[in-house]
């Protein structure tokens, strides 16, 4: 009997509180509704934008490798094009032109070191995979 009364009381509380809550949801003001709508559209656009990125850019390993390659080219260009070994270079072959070319081909070149750091795990894993390859 007591259990039944408790159950009825609990059910009444649940139903009444739920009804009040849903009524307050339905009575939300237009400003809040509009802001929620904007927030939703921003979230959906963010999701769609993330999916629409080219497949190459969606592969962090590849972009990191690209950054690493660009950094290597940049290093070589600076090393061989630096003031100490620049005696024979003509003005038209300025190392800064190379630098611009390298920078223009990969916008992530500046982050190359960071990205390389991020993907140390991959290179470690790939190295292990290569070393366990059975010899033919």
């Amino acid at each position, binding site marked *: 009997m007591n259990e039944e009364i408790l159950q009825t*009381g609990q059910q009444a509380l649940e139903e009444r509180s739920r009804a*009040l809550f849903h009524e307050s949801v339905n009575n*939300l003001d237009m400003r*809040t509704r509009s*802001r929620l709508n904007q927030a939703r559209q921003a*979230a959906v656009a963010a999701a769609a934008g*993330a999916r629409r990125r080219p497949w190459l850019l969606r592969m*962090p390993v590849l972009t990191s490798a690209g950054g690493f390659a660009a950094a290597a080219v940049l290093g070589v260009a600076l090393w061989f094009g630096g003031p100490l070994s620049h005696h024979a270079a003509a003005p038209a072959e300025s190392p800064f032109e190379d630098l611009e070319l390298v920078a223009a081909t990969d916008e992530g070149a500046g982050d190359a070191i960071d990205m390389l750091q991020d993907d140390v795990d991959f290179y470690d*894993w790939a190295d292990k995979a290569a070393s366990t390859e059975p010899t033919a």
Partner: protein
Amino acid sequence: MPAFDTLTEAWMVWDGPAPAPRGVVLEQTRELDRFLAEIERRAFRMAQVALRDPDDALDVVQDAMLKLARNYGKRPSAEWRPLFYRILENGIRDLQRRRSVRKRFMTWLPGPKEDPDNEAQDPLDSVADGAAPVPEQLMQAQALEKLESSLRELPARQREAFMLRNFEGLDVAETATAMGCSEGSVKTHYSRAVHTLREQLGEVW
């Protein structure tokens, strides 16, 4: 461990499967939009009950929407609801923690102290409305106010369990996922919440 002929092949394995076709992506985006449209108002009200401030509630809901879309948009839509509420509850808890730290810090600083009850109050709110409210509406408003203040007084986990189960209609398993605890804990939190609310709201209801 697999062996690869080229580094590109290794990259493909390391970085996961190829993206879904365009039609599938469009349908997923539409489904995400429908899902968020369906829950956004309830999520906002739940955040508002917990945080009191509507702007904070909007920020937390917006943040949860973005995180769900970015991080879990590709997951099956059946998983979205508990995941969304998990992100939302984490956001609410983070904000409450930041507030309490700020409050503690403010007590050490000289100058006028912040009154949380007066925070973000619009002076226009205190101006009397031209139309007198119908007695029934007034009673509803009072009951809602009492319910919200009682919910705020509950421990956070009990409040979460009650709102997710009763207002959002999640089952025990989904609530457990959203709260990051066991199903047994959900039942305990819910039962305690109901018990406390019945004690507090007994006179009104």
